[in-house]
């Protein structure tokens, strides 16, 4: 029972980071109709700008988080302006291939700059373990979880309760009608990409602190999972994407705990694909394209 609870908790923590990346990925897809395969590398860039901020500005967790958010946000801004916007309105495959190209360039470019192996990330916070009954949670895990939940809470508040967030959902469902009611679709699209990028930047720094390293290929794992999570949840409700991402983390952790860590991805993807067989437009429904 303790093992079960421990693994559920571990899974929720891992899943909360998946959720942040997946929500950003699906916000961009939903609003711009772009499968942004560079999104995981925005995450990776945030990890390295956060590292740079920690090394060269101040070895303070807040500084590193801000560095990660700003770096990722800027990379997202440039990507939107130079790659995504010129290709909008074309076939969805065009932007998919273009962003995939950017992803490969970003990963390999970073590997050339900083080396192909993980770099140590400074220990910005302690290693205290907290005990709740028999279940343990580390200080860094707690920070990672709390930050992810805060970012998810922000994303949910933004799309539900703000004027621009409402416009974001309006564009997602009917872009033409939104434009005809005074929404500048380009501006909202750009804000969406930058926000999604900054969210990924925050998550990347907290993951780097958790595992103690920054890596040029750190985005790969998150990219594929975010994409599948979005397909399984459907993109109609961002909260649905969050729920599926958390569920994915829990399944992985349980498989790791009871079977083997090398099976965790296999079992998780099997379940996700099985869901798609039963519900092709996702558990919570998708917008028609």
């Amino acid at each position, binding site marked *: 029972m303790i093992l079960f609870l421990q693994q559920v908790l571990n899974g929720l923590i891992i899943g909360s980071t998946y959720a942040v990346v997946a929500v950003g990925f699906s916000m961009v897809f939903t609003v711009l109709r772009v499968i942004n395969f560079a999104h995981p590398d925005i995450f990776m860039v945030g990890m390295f700008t956060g590292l740079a901020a920690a090394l060269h500005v101040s070895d303070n967790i807040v500084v590193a988080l801000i560095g990660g958010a700003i770096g990722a946000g800027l990379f997202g801004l440039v990507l939107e302006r130079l790659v995504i916007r010129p290709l909008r309105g074309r076939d969805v495959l065009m932007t998919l291939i273009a962003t995939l190209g950017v992803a490969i360039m970003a990963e390999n470019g970073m590997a050339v700059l900083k080396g192909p192996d993980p770099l140590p990330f400074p220990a910005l916070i302690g290693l205290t373990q907290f005990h709740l009954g028999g279940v343990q949670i580390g200080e860094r895990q707690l920070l990672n979880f709390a930050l992810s939940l805060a970012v998810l809470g922000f994303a949910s508040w933004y799309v539900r309760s703000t004027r621009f967030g409402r416009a974001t959902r309006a564009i997602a469902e009917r872009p033409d009608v939104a434009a*005809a009611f005074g929404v500048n679709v380009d501006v909202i699209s750009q804000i969406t990409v930058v926000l999604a990028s900054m969210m990924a930047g925050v998550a990347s720094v907290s993951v780097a602190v958790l595992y103690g390293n920054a890596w040029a290929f750190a985005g790969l794992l998150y990219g594929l999972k975010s994409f599948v999570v979005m397909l399984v949840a459907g993109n109609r409700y961002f909260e649905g994407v969050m729920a599926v991402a958390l569920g994915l983390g829990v399944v992985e952790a349980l498989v790791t705990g009871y079977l083997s860590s090398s099976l965790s991805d296999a079992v998780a993807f099997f379940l996700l694909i099985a869901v798609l067989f039963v519900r092709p437009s996702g558990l919570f429904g998708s917008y028609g394209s």
Partner: protein
Amino acid sequence: MSPLLEISDLHVRYNAVPAVNGVSIVIPAGEIRLILGANGAGKSTIIKAILGLQPAASGSIRFCGEHDLLRLRPHQIHQLGIAWVPEGRQLWGTLTVLENLRMGGFIERDAARLQRRIDELLQRFPRLGERRNQLAGSLSGGEQQMVAIARALVSSPKLLLMDEPSLGLAPFVVRDVFALTREINAMGISVLMVEQNARQALKLAHWAWLLETGRIVVSGPSAEIAATESVQEVFLGGRA
């Protein structure tokens, strides 16, 4: 004084296929004007060209004599005071009724003023007030049409573009929609309506055009148009 909207020699093509072929129409302030035409005649294309949603091949669309709408983007055109009741309502079904109305007033940055305007409209449409927190997609067709009209009125437009507002509605709801259109016009809002339901729309409009394969073939005061033989045959089921 220049007319509210003046379309001159408008040509629109889908790829190479012409949809609108040299249409020139004028809407003076204060009137309800009607474009009649069968499916595929190009009625909705004209509306979309005015809104900036469909690029034109040539011609001009002037608003209040000065702005050439063909040079503006959809959100800029809306800011001049043009609102849209789209064909088939096209509400945001995953947004609540209230959120749809707030989106109708997206350009109003003053939240208090927007809320006052929405409250006024909800008084006029008490049924929508009852359903304000329901998802717009869950309403009946008639209620959805009321939301679509209310949504277009939130921004207090000068010109309302109504694309087939009677389509798919029960006859008693159609009567309500047309009565409401008259009421909107009495508030000083000009209306350009596109319809296939000629009999009732002609009673409402001051002026009408008959559009066939992208060209205006008949033009005149509604009463005269209703008496025209071609309109009688095509839309009114022969001589009454």
